[in-house]
């Protein structure tokens, strides 16, 4: 004797439901323990790398500016005199951050 389609539909749903594993706190704990901690690690690494970059840039910038100055006939000295070496370095970093923000925004990783 065979079942009707409706009856079998209910029976099949019941079979799948009966086979569904019960919620297991140990499974949840194992998943949470396996989660990578990149959530805070990545920003920390990026900030440290950025600070290091600013430090190197501010140490090297006067030399670079003076080298360029020889080419640009005094423009570098005028820029440093006007803005200061560190302000110039921060300006360059700000332009870089702005460009990165623009790229992330265009990729959809940032939303307003």
């Amino acid at each position: 004797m065979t079942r009707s389609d409706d009856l079998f539909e209910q029976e099949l749903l019941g079979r799948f439901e009966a086979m569904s594993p019960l919620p297991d706190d140990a499974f949840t704990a194992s998943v949470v323990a396996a989660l990578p901690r990149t959530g805070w690690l990545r920003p920390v690494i990026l900030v440290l790398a950025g600070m290091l970059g600013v430090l190197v840039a501010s140490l090297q910038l006067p030399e670079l500016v003076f080298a360029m100055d020889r080419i640009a006939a005094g423009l570098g000295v005028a820029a440093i005199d006007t803005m200061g070496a560190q302000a110039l370095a921060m300006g360059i970093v700000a332009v870089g951050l702005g460009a990165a923000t623009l790229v992330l925004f265009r990729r959809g990783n940032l939303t307003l």
Partner: protein
Amino acid sequence: MSETDEALVARVVAGSDRRAFGALVSRHQSVVRGLLARLTGGAPDADDLAQETFVQAWRRIDTYRGQGSFRSWLCQIAYSRFLMGLRKQKSHQRLLDTAAREPEPSSVSAGQPGARLDLDRALAVLGDDERDCVVLCYAAGLSHADAATITGLPLGTVKSHVSRGRARLKDWFDRQESAA
């Protein structure tokens, strides 16, 4: 009152809130583990795949746009993991091997002995696409449209796979009862 999936996801995205993600895991683990258990024919490493699914969901959670249900999004990741891993290892052969084994005691809520074995053995008679569509719709409770999105098959194809798969399962169970 418990938070919605979307609220928990927002907490995870905003502050990498592991507790909020744990709540999502608790809420959806039965569906994901059940889905992978049926897709793999009850393979012992189905829970490992489920864990990988949740870890990948954690990494990619900022890509969840809330356009469909969070459960459907998770099932999509789970199905991708299944395809990457177990299908390469001839999962159909695993299904047959599993069907030949005695069911091991587990934390499933089934009361009747051999029920899991019966279901996995019955699913093993279906074609790969048929089985995947049936399992997505019945084990994970997804709509045909969600199953179509996840498998990448046209909606009409999913509907016919589910319909044909259900008919073949009915025949299989009817034959088993007649023989008993």
